[in-house]
């Protein structure tokens, strides 16, 4: 009896802790500041789209949105491509090279990417890669390669060796086996890893903050930070911006919930 009450109370409290702030943000996007302060959880008196209009007119949301999409898609796509090739090679390698490469990438798991901000910044200034989306994409690829290779190598190693050997005997080269056998077989792992990487790239603040200062190159998290400075405590505008910035993730989460959870937990466990 006590256990049941204890369990249900705790579960209800945490569910409320997640759902209440989410509702405040969604409802708040349709309210003005005064209504948010006085009745944060009530339904809006009028479902006004004024905040969205203001955001579009003044806030320049399209550019950062577009930049975030470009950076995330290219970072994830290229990382998955390169990481899957490397993982395939490492998993199939029978020589010491594969082991050595794997260890080398494992170093990247031990050193948090955040500690390299100074050398990366300096290098990028020299290469004229600051204020460049390509620069951001390159950083994202470098930072996420180790974890991706870790996850994908484990997956490739679970595939049967005999199958690959049979294909090799039939005369298929490495590239052919990778493309027509290994890649299709590891589609679930690629999807999960891809989502994991997408969340990282979409949400990252540190590297864009350091590398991007021009307005038309900013990504969404960076624009949100600017908004906080601009609108200070105008939470109606801030909530609207948060809602717009989160919508792609929320839609992906609701439609591909299994892959999402698989990806974000594989990333944690393997990392």
């Amino acid at each position, binding site marked *: 009896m006590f256990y049941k009450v204890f369990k249900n109370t705790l579960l209800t409290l945490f569910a409320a802790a997640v759902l209440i702030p989410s509702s405040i943000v969604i409802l708040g996007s349709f309210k003005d500041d005064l209504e948010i302060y006085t009745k944060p959880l009530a339904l809006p008196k009028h479902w006004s789209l004024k905040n969205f209009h203001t955001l579009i007119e003044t806030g320049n949301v399209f550019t950062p949105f577009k930049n975030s999409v470009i950076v995330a898609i290219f970072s994830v796509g290229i990382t998955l491509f390169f990481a899957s090739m490397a993982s395939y090679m490492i998993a199939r390698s029978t020589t010491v090279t594969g082991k050595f490469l794997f260890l080398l990438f494992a170093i990247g798991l031990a050193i*948090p990417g955040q500690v390299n901000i100074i050398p990366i910044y300096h290098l990028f200034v020299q290469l004229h890669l600051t204020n460049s989306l390509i620069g951001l994409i390159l950083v994202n690829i470098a930072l996420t390669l180790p974890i991706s290779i870790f996850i994908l190598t484990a997956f490739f190693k679970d595939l049967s060796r005999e199958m690959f050997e049979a294909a090799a005997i039939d005369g298929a080269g490495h590239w052919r086996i990778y493309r027509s056998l290994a890649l299709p077989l590891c589609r679930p792992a690629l999807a999960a890893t891809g989502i994991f990487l997408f969340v990282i790239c979409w949400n990252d603040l540190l590297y864009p903050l350091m590398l991007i200062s021009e307005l038309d190159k900013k990504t969404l998290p960076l624009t949100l930070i600017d908004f906080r400075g601009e609108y200070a405590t105008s939470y109606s505008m801030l909530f609207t911006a948060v809602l717009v910035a*989160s919508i792609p*993730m929320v839609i992906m989460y609701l439609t591909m919930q299994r892959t999402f959870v698989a990806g974000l937990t594989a990333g944690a466990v393997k*990392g």
Partner: protein
Amino acid sequence: MAFPAFAIYAFLYLYPSLSNVYYSFQRWDGVTKPEFVGLHNFTYLATNDDLFMKVLGNNFRFSFIVVIFQTLLALLFATFLLKNTKTSIALRIVFFFPTILSSVSVGLIWNFLYDPNFGFINAILKSVGIPGLNWLGDTRYSLYAIALTQVWFHTGQMVVIYVAGLQQIPQELYEAAEVDGASRWQQFKNITWPMALPTTAVVVAYTTIQTFRAFDLVYSMTQGGPLNSSDMLVTLIYNTAFSSYKWGYASAQSIILVFVVLLLTYLQRRTLRLNTGEK
């Protein structure tokens, strides 16, 4: 076939990591030529820099609180939500939801919840007669307030990891314990806890690293303030480099961060191995 990955990784990960070590022995403002100063940056950090020591302490406290609370909460929730019933699955989806948001979004949302004048938390406290606090603006509470947000942010992710781990435990163990009349607490203590130790190790290691990487959330909530009361290592390194222009010194700070993370990971692995009897 590993070449493209290797090339990018070597050029943009390994090489910067090595230059970081090199920079840490220099006095350098990022513009003029670096000057070699030997171990000076490190001796200064260890003996003269009160701010660094404070921030190191902050980060350890933050990490400790988040690891303890997040891990225990996640384990508790995972035992509640272990069975794949409709309610359990729905609750796991709800709990996991914050994980997909960006730290900046989470920071902005919690800025509102913590707002001393209009905030939701103080409004609730006032309605039951407790005076509100200036959560993020008071040096005594800011660190704990951010820790609470971090726990809110990532507990759901850890619940899912625990559920996967706990579902591996053979059901017969619980059935046998039930027959012997073991209470729920005894079952938890003697079956769940020891059997979940490998998962706990993963969760603790991941959370530890995550808390020592903390930047986005701190930057968007307090920027380390007030008076550095919520400053963490990465926010300090960022400011040392980009506000104070002491680049060599910031590199030395980040080398210390690498050592802290490596040391903690190593110690945790050792403790876990002792506990599970693995070699």
